[in-house]
């Protein structure tokens, strides 16, 4: 016992004696362990936060696509909907036994680069994240009117939106549009508290609002081309009213009607797409000179699901050159139609820009009457597989049901490569720190030779000397680890202080995971093994004492 105390006493004094070198070695170890533990911590935090992006949702149902695609689309709102679910299917699913609730999600619109999500008010009750944490309103409440919008925390801070603020939601991001004042404006009815999930970056409106946006947008388009028409303005309003009620049914009919006398079945049509659909019917009556152009739109304006899909596929492919083509064509057309070429050119240009804008933003919104995905809650999780199977075998539509947790894990495993790279780097950093430590110990061997001789002469056994060297390394690593842990805890506390509102989640102070404990164990083991080198050298010195 006394020997052990003597051992640690001598080791301690020895380290103090070599303080400058030791301090550097400790710093190197501390930094590398800090990096190692941070990476491990962030990795675990990211994983758990990622895995808890959505909870309490048993299934996510969308049109048949990849599982990860559906997850990315429905939860992370990344990517474009390639197909939609008809409202009939949604209703059928919701009527299934064991299905407790369904929350539809309709994507396809955006506002200043933030996604607009059309959903039902129930979303705010059903969507949970983390450990079943509900969405909380920082201010205001859920949408009650069609023209209410609920904004995510990040959207609110980024765009400085507060309760009651008015904003224009439209397909084309009308913030630069001269028709701004004509559009349907939404009022912020609620601001959500930070969640650290994609909810923060989204705006939420009712499904009715999504329809309204599209109707409004048609009008906007109409405006762009028809504002020289004195009647356009007043008529637009009528038309708009019409829309909300009759939107779908008129369209297919309308399509047939105009596709015939439209000779240009250009690609551009797909670009003109749905947004023009509704109003064309009305518009072309007022503006006969715009006939061709609107015929184009009409062609595009069908709402049959299957066709819609195809069209979108084509649309995506041709997006770019279509824009310019469309622009030209449009300009030409305007020239033909009107004699004030320059004025119309301007407008056309504007329109072209508008189209480009549309492209840039997401506007593959589902046709009215369909949704992009639905979140499904079941009476009991026990029915999950059963319902999933039923959905996957749904006869009327090709649907896909995924288990969010499972899909999240799958997605994480894709992202996982990065974490392994980080881990690898931190391990390399640590090993280099250990080599530095060893180099320091070895470099000190020359001066320590005499100390070892003295220790041997007073009867210190060889193992005492070997143990001394190992313990010194261990002490350096231990102090380094203590500093690293303290530093990490401070860093987390600081980060939580500064970034809590930004991140929406506090990093846990629980920084010890099984994996990091294993890492610490391995650190000691590696230190032990590496310290055998100077220790062995010391032993050799001890054995060959007074050979000079």
């Amino acid at each position, binding site marked *: 016992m*006394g*020997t052990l105390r*003597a051992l640690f*006493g*001598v080791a301690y*004094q*020895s380290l*103090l*004696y070599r303080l400058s070198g030791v301090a550097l070695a400790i710093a190197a170890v501390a930094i590398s362990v800090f990096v190692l533990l941070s990476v491990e911590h962030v990795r675990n935090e990211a994983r758990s936060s990622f895995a808890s992006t959505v909870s309490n949702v048993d299934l996510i149902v969308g049109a048949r696509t990849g599982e990860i695609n559906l997850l990315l689309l429905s939860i992370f709102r990344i990517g474009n909907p390639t197909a939609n679910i008809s409202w009939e299917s949604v209703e059928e699913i919701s009527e299934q036994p064991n299905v407790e609730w369904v929350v539809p999600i309709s994507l396809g619109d955006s506002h200043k680069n933030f996604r607009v999500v059309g959903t039902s008010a129930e979303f705010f009750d059903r969507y949970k994240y983390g450990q079943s944490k509900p969405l909380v309103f920082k201010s205001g409440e859920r949408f009650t009117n069609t023209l209410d919008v609920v904004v995510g925390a990040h959207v609110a801070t980024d765009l400085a939106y507060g309760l009651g603020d008015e904003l224009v939601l439209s397909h084309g991001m009308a913030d630069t549009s001269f028709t701004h004042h004509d559009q349907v404006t939404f009022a912020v009815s609620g601001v959500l508290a930070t969640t650290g999930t994609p909810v923060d970056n989204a705006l939420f409106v009712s499904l009715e609002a999504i329809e309204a946006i599209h109707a409004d947008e048609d009008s906007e388009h109409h405006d762009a081309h028809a504002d020289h028409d004195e009647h356009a303005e007043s008529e637009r309003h009528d038309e708009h009213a019409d829309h909300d009620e009759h939107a779908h049914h008129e369209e297919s009919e309308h399509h047939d009607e105009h596709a015939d006398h439209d000779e240009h079945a250009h690609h551009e049509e797909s670009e003109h797409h749905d947004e023009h659909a509704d109003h064309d019917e009305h518009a072309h009556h007022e503006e006969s000179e715009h006939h061709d152009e609107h015929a184009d739109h009409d062609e595009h304006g069908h709402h049959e699901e299957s066709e819609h899909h195809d069209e979108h596929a084509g649309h995506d492919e041709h997006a770019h050159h279509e824009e310019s083509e469309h622009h030209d064509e449009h300009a030409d057309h305007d020239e033909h139609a009107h004699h004030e070429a320059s004025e119309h050119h301007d407008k056309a240009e504007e329109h072209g820009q508008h189209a480009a804008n549309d492209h840039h933003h997401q506007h593959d919104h589902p046709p009215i009457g369909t949704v992009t995905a639905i979140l499904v809650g079941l009476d009991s999780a026990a029915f999950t597989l059963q319902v999933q199977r039923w959905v996957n075998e749904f006869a009327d539509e090709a649907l896909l049901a995924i288990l969010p947790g499972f899909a999240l894990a799958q997605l994480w495993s894709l992202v996982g490569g990065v974490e392994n790279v980080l881990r690898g780097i931190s391990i390399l950093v640590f090993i280099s720190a250990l080599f530095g430590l060893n180099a320091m110990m070895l470099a000190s061997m020359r001066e320590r030779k*005499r*100390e070892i*001789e*003295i*220790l*041997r*002469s*007073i*009867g*210190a*056994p*060889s*193992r*005492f000397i070997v143990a001394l060297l190992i313990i010194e390394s261990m002490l350096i690593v231990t102090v380094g680890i203590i500093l690293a842990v303290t530093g990490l805890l401070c860093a987390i506390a600081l980060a939580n202080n500064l970034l809590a509102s930004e991140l929406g989640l506090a990093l846990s102070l629980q920084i010890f995971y099984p994996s990091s404990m294993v890492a610490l164990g391995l650190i000691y083991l590696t230190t032990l093994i590496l310290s055998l080198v100077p220790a062995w050298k010391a032993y050799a010195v001890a054995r060959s*004492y*007074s*050979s*000079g």
Partner: protein
Amino acid sequence: MATQENTAAAIDIKELVFRFGPGLDPVLTIPEWSVAANERVFLQGNSGSGKSTLLGLLAGLRTPTAGVVNILDTQISALSGRKRDAFRAQNIGVVFQQFNLIPFLSVLDNILLAAEFGSSSSTTLKTRAKELLERVNLDSGLSSRKAEQLSIGQQQRVAIVRALINSPALLLVDEPTSALDHANKESFLTLLNEVLDDTNCAMVFVSHDPSIGSMFDHQVALQDLNQPVGAH
């Protein structure tokens, strides 16, 4: 325990051969040499003559290539490494020429560390250490100072205390005065002899300097002991 009677010979060497490696000429070939208990021997040898090597063998830090080294009736050359370390700690005090102390330990810790290896009883240890320090004319206030802060002369006196803390029966001293000036040299030797008078400790004092020999009862030249092969 300072008055313990050592009847056994402090050193008894027979047919000792030591070479640094197989095939090399032996550094030492000593057919016979013994030092009685309590005897103080001055061993003169030129540098490179193998003095330090002989001390290493006597201290059990080295083992002979052939022959027997008995210290206090114990055949130290036949002990295992660990036992030799323990034997050395308990029975042999060693003082080198200059660097005797662990520089980063305090004077007292240097002494106590030696006591630790010698398994001396700890109750009276500090008192005994302070007594010995006073005996070699060191202020007890120095005991908490780091060894490296002391002068060479002070360090050498601490080294004597440390060597004697376990009441060894044999003190091996290797040119302890080489770093001291003449006046300090004499006073050091006088002090060493005085301290040893209180004990029953034999001493082998090694130096290249024959002038010191006059202060010892017995003087031996290493050349006379060492009879390398071919010298006859």
